[in-house]
């Protein structure tokens, strides 16, 4: 017991700022792909988290105790995303082989990481014993008592072997609640090299010019709060949208300062007819493949599809800069992680924890990268040459410098989405831009049900 996880000094933000709630349709397609290939510059992305909680290394005898105490068949259900099935099944088989003295009956179910929360919360006692989810759901899951605290590490050091940001993302109120699986749940720019040169993609203005000349378009999911964030919270704007100190409501000031300039800048880009609102991920990627779009903003989960379609013309880079009110800003982004959690209602919590550790250890993360191109959260796995050489992972690493960890309450998504829809349609009603921003901010900062 004395070896329980000890919370080291946590910044005040970390303590409270983890109430992220993300509705299923807002979360990026949780197919998952790589983020920080270079963990060193991770600190740039998360300036608020100086230190990270440490998970105590457990007594070596613990696993032996567990094996000795296990007499019946260990029945577990694991949820992994549809794309991850084959890989996860392999890993499960290997896990079972590690403990020949124990009888396992591990079933693999399909549940996308982006909707894990919905499926778990509808009845936590019936949910899988081990499940993968996107880090923005962690607060809701912890509040609902649907995540087992990672009280101790058994087979590898969860807090030290993974990049600091990923451990911070798995931490709520000073306790680690999940095992980092990938560090790539963010977004960046995909472009067609036959249209853009490496210089063109540095600025959105140039890109619009070039794409316009080439009679193609640039797709951006404006009506998706997750992506829209990149514009408003661009570097140097002093605009923010984040969780307030109460851990439930948001603070957002998009309607102040240069907010109007940015909204007008978006309207200006939309007005060119070259920079267009993409309907959703599927259509963005599909249009990219068809050549209708020459560039899109998307995440690593689309890397395979796009690189296959574009072949040698496949390019990925950090997000471009854009101009608003005569000033140039670097687009920001959300940085996210995928985690594996253990259900505290499991009948075999001990085995579930071991399995979760196995699914996220270095070897498994390397395998995940090799099979699906997902960026490892494991420091050693992420620093391998092959991982670093992957264009999508390199791009998300380059973007990491300008990314913000996703700590935002549930009221952010619908109002911001609506704002993006209006801007993406070119503000058809001609509403005053300041009013639009005021309304959106009012919704984003709205109090969360009191009673």
């Amino acid at each position, binding site marked *: 017991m004395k070896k329980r996880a000890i919370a080291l000094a946590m910044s005040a933000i970390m303590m409270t700022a983890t109430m992220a709630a993300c509705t299923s349709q807002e979360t990026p397609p949780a197919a998952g792909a790589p983020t920080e290939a270079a963990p060193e510059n991770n600190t740039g992305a998360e300036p608020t988290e100086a230190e990270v909680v440490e998970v105590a290394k457990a007594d070596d005898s613990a696993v032996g105790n567990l094996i000795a*105490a296990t007499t019946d068949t260990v029945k577990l259900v694991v949820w992994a995303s549809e794309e991850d099935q084959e890989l996860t099944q392999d890993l499960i088989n290997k896990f079972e082989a590690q403990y020949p003295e124990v009888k396992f009956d591990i079933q693999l179910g399909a549940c996308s990481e982006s909707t894990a929360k919905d499926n778990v919360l509808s009845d936590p006692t019936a949910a899988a014993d081990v499940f993968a989810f996107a880090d923005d759901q962690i607060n809701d899951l912890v509040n609902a008592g649907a995540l087992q605290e990672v009280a101790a590490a058994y087979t590898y050091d969860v807090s030290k072997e993974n990049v600091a940001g990923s451990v911070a993302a798995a931490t709520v109120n000073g306790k680690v609640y999940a095992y980092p699986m990938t560090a790539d749940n963010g977004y960046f720019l995909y472009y067609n090299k036959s249209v853009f040169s490496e210089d063109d993609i540095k600025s959105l203005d140039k890109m619009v010019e070039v794409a316009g000349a080439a009679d193609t378009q640039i797709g951006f999911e404006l009506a998706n709060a997750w992506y829209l964030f990149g514009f408003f919270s661009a570097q140097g704007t002093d605009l923010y949208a984040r969780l307030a100190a109460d851990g439930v409501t948001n603070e957002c000031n998009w309607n102040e300062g240069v907010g109007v300039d940015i909204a007008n800048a978006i309207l200006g880009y939309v007005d060119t007819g070259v920079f267009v609102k993409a*309907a959703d991920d599927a259509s963005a990627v599909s249009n990219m493949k068809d050549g209708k779009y020459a560039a899109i903003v998307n995440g690593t989960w689309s890397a395979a599809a796009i690189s296959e379609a574009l072949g040698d013309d496949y390019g990925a880079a950090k997000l471009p800069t854009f101009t608003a009110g005569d000033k140039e800003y670097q687009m920001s982004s959300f940085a996210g992680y995928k985690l594996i959690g253990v259900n505290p209602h499991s009948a075999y919590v001990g085995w579930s*924890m071991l399995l979760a550790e196995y699914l996220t250890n270095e070897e498994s993360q390397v395998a995940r990268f090799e099979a699906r191109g997902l960026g490892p959260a494991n420091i050693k796995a992420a620093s391998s040459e092959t991982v670093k050489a992957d264009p999508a992972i390199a791009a998300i690493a380059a973007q990491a410098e300008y990314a913000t960890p996703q700590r935002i309450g549930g009221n952010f998504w619908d109002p911001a989405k*609506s704002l993006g829809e209006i801007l993406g*349609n070119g503000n058809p009603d001609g509403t005053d831009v300041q009013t639009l921003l005021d309304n959106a901010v009012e*919704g984003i900062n709205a109090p969360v049900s009191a009673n």
Partner: protein
Amino acid sequence: MAKKRKQTEEVVKRDLLKEVGEGIKKYFTDFGTAVNKGDWGTRASLIVMGAGFIARKQFAKGILITLVQIMYFIVFAVYSVPYLTKFGTLGTVQMEQTFDPVTMQQTTNNYDNSFLILIHSMISLFLLVVFVMYYIHNMKAAYKVEKDAWAGRHVNNILEDIADMVGKKFYISLLTLPTIGIVLMNILPILVLVAIAFTNYDQNHMPPASLFTWVGFDNFKALISSGGMTITFGYAFRKVLGWTLVWAVLATFTNFIGGIVLAVLINSKGVKLKKMWRSLFVIAIAVPQFVTLILVRNFFRDDGIVNTLCANAGITDFFKSIGLLGANMNFIPFLTSKGWAKVMIVLINIWVGIPYQMLIATGVLMNAPQDQLESARIDGASHTQIFWKITVPYILVVQGPALITDFVRNINNFNVIYLLTQDVYTTTDQMLANSNAKEVDLLVTWLFRLTNEYYNYKMASVIGIIVFIICVLFTLVSYSKLMAGGREEDYQI
């Protein structure tokens, strides 16, 4: 005809009120009489329920009834009491789990689950009411047996009672199982949900990890006062309710009229291969609805195939030139802008609904009253006259009740709206967005998302109750207007 209907209607109304009032009164006075006037045997049934029958030497029946009573008492003590004692608070012991890192075992305390307490209390209360009703009924039955025995009338023994179950009282055998099913699937869930509207069951109070408790009428007040979970909740509620009603009217009547028109068209003279035409339309509904709706949603995407075709054919530009589309739109926002989406939803609903209505209308027309038509023809009425004076009123009379049920079904038409707009439609009304609603939402789809994505069960229950009340009021009013009551008797000559 009309006059007669009006009269019966009034009679029905008066009867209904009186019937219910008198029924309740009689129910209890009969019980009182039995207790007051019964002899020792009947009165002993107050304690041992079978006593009344045993006193009349109906041992088998008496013992059986007493066994039922004992069984209920056991159920009550073992099952109901533990839950009912916590019903007032809905539980007080929060869940606590501790994990021992050395043995790797988890221990959970004996916690209260508010939701289970609520459900099982409701079941217990329901059983209690049923038992009390049976208890009262038993007293009356015992008294009746006493009187029958005293008057020397024949008293059924248990074998005769069993024979009755396939004879005079066959309805009991018929209705028992279906009723149990309905209680389980409909009545209990409704009771539970009505109860939830008076609790604070939401994302911050989700069992099993946390408890929820009673809050009285707070949720209803929140809805009315616009205080709710967001500042715009009341606004969103009015907007969504408005569209729900407009939708229900549009969807019901377009399908109804469309179905008749199509049926008439197919059946009219000069149309060859009627069967083939009918089958062609039926094919469209043979694909399960959720498949077709998802399909159509992708068909009409902003960047979908229809838009591509329209752009190539110049239709998009044509719409621009006549002002149906904004100048900077390079696609038709079939399902993504307010006006277009509403029109498209109604049109797509016509697409999925008319084939059914066409089949029904065909049948209705087949059963049209031939005698009236003939006599009208003999009187030399023109076809137009016959159509408006006989056929139309006939259709309205027969189809009236179906129209009402369709209307109610459309108020609750989850599939069409959800499958066509989920993940596709983004609201541009920021006040709606602030309450997680959309312009195209019906009350049911809104409450589905409130529960499924925001876990706001308490407000969803409040909305559900309101939808229910609207439907019930509407139906009662329109049925009393449309139906003359006891129509089945007319047909069974």
